[in-house]
């Protein structure tokens, strides 16, 4: 049921500003802790943000603006340039000892088991 007004702004354009993609993740748990891998293709290291507050871990990433490409989009499968996903952590995980590595658009987080939960920012290291 599309109307043929290609140049007119789409009514959902404003909504799209808040839209995010949910990155695909793998989560493994072993005796020592939890390992999380997240696919964030197109996100440069300086546009990745990891945040832990109380028991919530939030992963956010903004794609590089170059990916918008020049010219007219003729085929679009990735329509939103940002990712966000939040996880609830359980109490035995030690958020102070989270280790993060980010390479080729894949984030690897290692969250060891322990106690405590306080807000902090996680530094991303060159993987």
């Amino acid at each position, binding site marked *: 049921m*599309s109307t043929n007004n290609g140049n007119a702004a789409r009514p959902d354009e404003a909504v799209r500003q808040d839209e995010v*993609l*949910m990155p*695909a*993740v*793998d*989560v*493994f*748990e*072993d*005796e020592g802790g*939890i*390992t999380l*891998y997240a*696919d*964030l*293709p*197109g*996100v*440069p290291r300086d546009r990745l943000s990891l945040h832990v507050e109380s028991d919530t871990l939030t992963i956010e990433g903004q794609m*590089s603006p170059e*990916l918008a*490409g*020049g*010219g*007219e*989009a*003729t*085929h*679009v*499968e*990735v*329509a939103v340039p940002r990712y966000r996903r939040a*996880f609830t952590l359980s109490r035995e995980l030690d958020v102070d000892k989270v280790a993060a590595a980010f*390479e*080729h*658009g*894949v984030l*690897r987080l290692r969250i060891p088991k322990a106690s405590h939960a306080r807000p902090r920012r996680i530094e991303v290291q060159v993987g």
Partner: protein
Amino acid sequence: MLYRSVFPGDLLAQLERLQRGMRAAPELSPSIRGLARGGFPAINVSAGPQSTEIHVFAPGMNPADIELHLEKGVLTIQGERKAEAPAGDEKAAVHIDERFSGRFRRVLTLPEDADPDGVVARYRDGVLHISVSRKQASQPRRIDIQ
């Protein structure tokens, strides 16, 4: 033993995937080779006056493991993405398993004026950027009036 837990994130991710599929504009260039929405890797294509820009979202790859072939105007992108297994721990549990692993292959038909010698591919931040220039003769140019 690996086991999969029933985790609400799985369901949410599936819904999100479904929505993403529906969001994709259906009116864009239906191809006989199919569009494989939601497949891996996701592909964006944009057409500019000098070139066609293709972005292939294939994170976590070794660039050497991606094969690009161009034959008769058909571009094939294939390779294999290895699974990240929990490090040899028998008690490891898999809570969420969404990321693609295994062999993939996607095929694109390039525009007729694509220059087979003008293809440049670069892998950065998990995205393969393929730039295919258009043949000189078909690029827009100004015509002088005599």
